[in-house]
């Protein structure tokens, strides 16, 4: 393999680990639309930045951080509107904005489409360093706030009832979501990053026993999804995002099948 592809693989590995770790909380809280909302908000930022000749990653970062802050303030227990429904409406709105921008743009439509489907060929050592730094920062964050994050995962309302830091930790976590999804948008693609967020963690939840095992396994599955997906994309000349997501889905199918065949119990 050409040395040109090493930073691409390293970027993919860090992206997989980071998104795999995020997924543990997104899937565990049964709110996959949170991840989807934030990733699509990042995509809106990126496509409109492209439309106005601004750096798309900058646009994605600004919008995804705003989106994260917005999601953090959606109440946990509204009776007249389920949180998932609210986020699904927000998601539909974001999708509308994305495709409106794609429709308006004539000159750099291919660049916009690469934001939807993902293209890893841009990644150099700078991108690898940024992705790696963010992933390490997320890991440090999840270690520092391990007990608070576990409590939020088990029950956000119970955590709020008994601890004074729940809102702060939840808000910081969503900010990390925004940052990581925005930075990884170009590699995996806005439409598919959601699957990478869900599949590795869902696979880990199938077969693991205890929170630590879930976290480590989900990070491993995320890493395998991106690295194998990127290699497939390179050798078979296929879209990167599609390959990554297909691998992560296959991992989920494999763990579900294993659980069924081996009759795994807790």
């Amino acid at each position: 393999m050409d040395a040109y592809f090493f930073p691409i693989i390293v970027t993919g590995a860090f992206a997989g680990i980071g998104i795999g770790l995020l997924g543990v909380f997104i899937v565990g809280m049964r709110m996959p639309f949170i991840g989807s909302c934030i990733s699509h908000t990042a995509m809106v930022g990126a496509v409109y930045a492209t439309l106005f000749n601004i750096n798309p990653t900058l646009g994605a970062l600004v919008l995804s951080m705003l989106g994260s802050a917005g999601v953090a303030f959606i109440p946990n227990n509204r009776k007249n509107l389920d949180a998932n429904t609210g986020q699904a409406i927000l998601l539909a709105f974001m999708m509308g904005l994305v495709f409106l921008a794609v429709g308006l743009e004539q000159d750099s439509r291919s660049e916009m489409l690469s934001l939807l489907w993902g293209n890893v060929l841009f990644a150099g050592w700078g991108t690898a360093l940024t992705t790696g730094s963010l992933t390490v920062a997320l890991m440090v964050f999840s270690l520092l706030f391990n007990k608070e994050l576990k409590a939020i995962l088990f029950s956000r309302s119970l955590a709020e009832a008994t601890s004074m830091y729940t809102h702060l930790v939840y808000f910081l976590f969503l900010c990390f979501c925004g940052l990581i999804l925005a930075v990884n948008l170009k590699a995996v693609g806005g439409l598919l990053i959601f699957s990478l967020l869900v599949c590795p963690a869902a696979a880990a939840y199938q077969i693991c026993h205890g929170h630590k095992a879930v976290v480590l396994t989900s990070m491993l599955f995320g890493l395998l999804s991106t690295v194998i997906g990127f290699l497939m994309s390179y050798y078979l000349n296929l879209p990167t995002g599609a390959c990554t997501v297909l691998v992560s889905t296959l991992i989920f199918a494999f763990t579900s099948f294993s659980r069924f065949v081996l009759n795994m119990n807790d």
Partner: protein
Amino acid sequence: MKNCVALSDILIKRGSHTILQIDQLTIHAGEFVGLLGPNGAGKTTFLKLCCGLIKPNRGNVRFQNQCISRIAPGRIAHFRKHIGYIPQQAEYHAHLPFTLREVVAMGRNALKPLFHALDKTDYEIVDSWIDKMGLADRGRQTFRSLSGGQQQKALIARAMVAEPQFLLLDEPGANLDPNWKKQLRETLDRLFNDCRITALLISHELDLIPSACQRLILLDQGRIVQDGPKAQVINSDFARQLFGRTITTPEKP
């Protein structure tokens, strides 16, 4: 007798609909109070009000003589760490593969500042409560693999490891079979007799009220319709109307 929680002139409205209206109510330290009422009576609202999770439109809630209904959200958390809360099943994610020990250990979080992990002493307390709940052989098992009754006991242990001064139980026996309901009542009786903790249990079933609970409050359409000794309340006309049958207390264990 020292007050634990005192409510005065409380009004909670949603739109034009009154959810809860209470003139005066005091729960004394060391009392075990049962709050009964049909679905939609305002029981959970009452419970959330007591632990400062919701603010009333009017009136005051005082916890240990400090007003918690009119203080900043940041400061209210300081009081919440003294309150043990056992939620309804819909409020927690029982499907996650947390071990029983992990779930119980989460209760100690309230006593730990940020960036401080639980230490050996914390885990000794966690293990002792798991033991007291009769779940010592299941500590490594996942919470999701436990039966409904065992999960309830685990949640009681989770609340108790935080050494609370006020325990709130929100429909703890919902969906349990009669045998587990009996076990849960016995557990709560033992807990109260051993720890003399102030407790408020809400339920829409009389079968779940333990014998340690000597005071009953009946709530209907957001208002207190009866408040007094258990024997007196369950024989009241209000109780018969609300529950639509002749009421018998559960047998003593």
